């Protein structure tokens, strides 16, 4: 056990090390390249970072359990958009409009229910048809997006409610509403995955599905619950974000699945399932947001941003691999 301890610690801490590196780099580079007088590692800026991580971060928490489970969900971006439309559109329905600001909790509820149902539908398809989750959700990524467009054609759906905006922009203990939701989602998923039977079964199924089936775990419903969870969290993310922005384009949330998966993988979750952690994912989310923000801070242009983000992703994967090399005597397969 002892010889592996250092590399193990390094591995588990890799994402945090990377975050520290980013912070140092952008702070130093910012001194020379940035026009901003304020330092990058300003406390306010870090709080902002947390807030800006929320839309991707909340979904990433759901993606963690789905990926640990051995599945993947490519449709979260579309679910995000549908939930946003329900949130904003429902407030204009006559009976809702009649309720004034009391419509807000109902609008939230509707959006969350719809998100959960869409997630559950993915799960049901995976369960009942036995089609791989990648394919099912690749399909529903298109299908759900089609549904988004059916709502309101190609036009945005908007309903700017200032009460809602004020709530979303509010701060409690200096931390923005969106950040609180991110922290709550992280905490809840951490509890679920480390402390509960459901969470441990998620690992077991992702690790060896056949063994789980043989042990009598009801794999189908279990996976469906996890898809419902990610649907719920995608909707929660939308609810938090669109409460503040009040308008959704039909192609909003596109490519979110890729960012979310990137964050989850950077955070150390195994793509084949069976291993991963919510805390790691949190680190992955922060690392990505930091990267985007930092590149803006030092004035990198679009082509550089694309190039750098792509290469960093690969570099982190490479480093992770290097940290994980078993000794020289390892089997070469």
């Amino acid at each position: 056990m002892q010889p592996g301890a250092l590399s193990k610690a390094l591995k588990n801490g890799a994402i945090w090390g990377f975050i520290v590196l980013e912070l140092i780099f952008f702070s130093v580079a910012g001194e020379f390249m940035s026009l901003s007088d304020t330092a990058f590692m300003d406390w306010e800026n870090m709080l902002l970072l947390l807030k800006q991580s929320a839309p991707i971060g909340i979904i990433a928490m759901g993606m963690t359990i789905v990926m640990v489970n051995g599945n993947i969900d490519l449709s979260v971006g579309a679910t995000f958009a549908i939930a946003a439309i329900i949130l904003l559109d429902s407030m204009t329905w006559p009976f809702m409009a009649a309720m004034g600001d009391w419509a807000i909790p109902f609008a939230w509820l509707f959006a969350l229910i719809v998100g959960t149902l869409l997630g559950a539908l993915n799960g049901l398809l995976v369960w009942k048809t036995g089609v791989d989750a990648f394919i099912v959700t690749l399909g529903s990524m298109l299908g759900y997006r089609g549904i988004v467009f059916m709502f309101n054609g190609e036009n945005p759906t908007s309903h700017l409610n200032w009460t809602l905006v004020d709530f979303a922009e509010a701060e409690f203990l200096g931390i923005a509403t969106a950040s609180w939701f991110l922290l709550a989602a992280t905490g809840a998923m951490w509890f679920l995955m480390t402390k509960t039977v459901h969470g441990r079964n998620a690992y077991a199924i992702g690790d060896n599905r056949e063994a789980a089936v043989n042990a009598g775990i009801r794999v189908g419903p279990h996976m469906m619950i996890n898809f419902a969870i990610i649907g719920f969290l995608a909707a929660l993310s939308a609810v938090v974000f669109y409460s503040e922005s009040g308008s959704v384009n039909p192609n909003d949330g596109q490519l979110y699945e890729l960012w979310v998966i990137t964050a989850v993988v950077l955070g150390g979750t195994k793509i084949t399932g069976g291993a991963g952690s919510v805390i790691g994912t949190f680190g992955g989310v922060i690392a990505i947001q930091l990267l985007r923000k930092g590149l803006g801070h030092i004035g990198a242009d679009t082509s550089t941003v694309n190039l750098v983000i792509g290469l960093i992703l690969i570099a982190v994967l490479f480093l992770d691999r290097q940290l994980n090399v078993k000794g020289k005597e390892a089997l070469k397969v």
Partner: protein
Amino acid sequence: MATLSKQKIGSVLAKQGILIAFAVFIVAFTLANNKFLTVDNVFSVVPASAKQGVMALGVTFVVISGNLDLSVGSMMSFSTIVVLDLHDKIGPFLAIPAMFAMTLCLGAFIGILVGYLRLNSLIVTLGMLSAIHGLTLTYSGGQNMDIADKEGTWFSVFGQGTALGIPVPILIFALLAAVLGLMLSRTPFGRKVYAVGGNGTAATFSGIRRARTVFMCYILSAFCVATAGLIQASRSLGSQNTVGQGLELEVLAAVILGGASLMGGSGTIFKTVIGVLILGFIQNGLLLLGLQFYVQYVVTWVIIILAVWLDIAAKRGRLWSPIA
């Protein structure tokens, strides 16, 4: 006897399910719109699908080897922009091999990362999707790329020409499908691709160079992407930087529709071709019916899931999954 013939029908269905689905679509669309099954239409659908099709051929190899390639769309933008730019600078004769060389370098880079360094292909190609886009933007300065003398170049032959009355893109696609189909099903290399995708460890234990096999799959994929870029560039003789954006998923959908498993080890070129044609005809059929593009999204969703579902249902001999 009765059970035997029933079993036979079942196994025929299992093997040819995708073909039957294809036939059903063709009949349905033909009934719905009399323009659908016309030479005009077929010759306009297939060239448009040809570049996705050509890319799908390469991705089939990658998927069978147990990996993914999400960078093909972005890489196709790159090769299109490069060949158009070089066309005016060094002439088409040199531009084409130069573009192929550059695209193959990108493929080799991915091949090294995934094959030799054994990094996860989903993430590597996701990263490359973004990085190659950045590269393309840097190369072009973000500008559209157009050939100056559009009428006077023979370069247009790959996208717009016809031979024996058949559009050249169709010929390229058919030729490449035939060659790669034989390569996959009949050559030792093809066998190794299946082995590496089916069980990489066992393949290594059997003396197969796993890394080299995966590397070659990405090289092939890049070759197909370069060919698609050539068709694309030649079709429009001008292009924007995002010309291939989003194609990676369309291509992957076609490969999956053809029945290749993402776990690796299964799939064929022939079925991928059918997958490409189904997606192409759906797209075209719905357009002919005057349906909104987003209806097409929903239909594609239903068709992908139904096709894959029926395929595996036939294989396991029951409709619903046995998972409790």
